[in-house]
């Protein structure tokens, strides 16, 4: 199957591959998997004092579309608030990357990973989250 240029670009030069300290209080970690294909994705956010996402990293073991989706997701969420990041839809990712219909589900992994990372970060600061937003 032919990947779009944007997928190839993200696949060949993935942005923000890496790991943040998952035990740090200002880091949220999202770990999601798709049992249907056996792929797994980790996406982490580091939230600054102003409540903005100042860094994001990912590690994905999956198909090219999943890698491109998570790479793009980390680019998109940097500088955003948690609400803005959590409102990103997989369809926007799929559209931006021109994913074919059979690969749409790969972008779901990225959407769910962002949400999971935001939820993990919030769970770490039960009270601070309301104060900061």
């Amino acid at each position, binding site marked *: 199957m032919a990947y779009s240029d944007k997928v190839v670009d993200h696949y060949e030069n993935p942005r923000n591959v890496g790991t943040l300290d998952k035990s740090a209080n200002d880091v949220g970690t999202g*770990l*999601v*998997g*798709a*049992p*249907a*294909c*056996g*792929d*797994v994705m*980790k996406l982490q956010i580091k939230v600054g004092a102003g409540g903005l996402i100042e860094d994001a990293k990912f*590690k994905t*073991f999956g198909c090219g579309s999943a890698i491109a989706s998570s790479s793009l997701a980390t680019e998109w969420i940097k500088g955003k608030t948690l609400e803005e990041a959590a409102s990103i839809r997989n369809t926007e990712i799929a559209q931006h990357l021109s994913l074919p219909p059979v690969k*749409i*589900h790969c972008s*779901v*992994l990225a959407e*769910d990973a962002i949400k*999971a990372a935001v939820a993990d970060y919030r769970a770490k600061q039960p009270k601070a989250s309301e104060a900061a937003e």
Partner: protein
Amino acid sequence: MATPFTDTAPGGAHSIRPCWSCRGPAAGDAAFCETCGVIQPPGQEDHFARLGLERRFDLDAGTIDRAYFARQRQVHPDRFARRAPREAAIAESRSVSLNAAYQTLRDPLRRATYLLELAGHPIAGDGKTIADPELLAEVMERREALAEADSPEAVAAVAADARHERVSAEAALGAAFAAGDYPAARRHATRLRYLGRLAEEARRRSAMRAA
């Protein structure tokens, strides 16, 4: 899937339907009409019932093979060479559904997946994600170890470890089914899928090296 689940349903429900040939009553899942002996089309029974097997995980390969081949012999094309074309066509469609049942039940993981569907605890399908932290952390770790393996021996070690884990995961899966604990069975089956994927990836890595 809304099919009610029972542990003991050998042969499934014995409904009666009219024989297409003599119009007499025929057992819902019988291959041949009791009255006229003519072949009957496959019904709606599940894959276990199709092979006359009990609906359970714990089935050995020999039992499944014997059940399958015995039924496949009954519908072999040679037996229908001189029968009406309609009978030969029905035999053929029975053969197709026997084959589907066999393919689904013969492989333990596919059998487990099917049982979980019947039980209303299906494994997450296409476009569905899971967030089981313990399982996914393990998967991440194994995939990382494979990615970092820099010699054929190191790749083989990851693969051997995965094989070993698959054996114990299969045993745990069997125990969960035996206890009727479907959430646990689903978790073990999901883990088996991931371990299978890891093994596949390890094979790909060794093939790449060999090339």
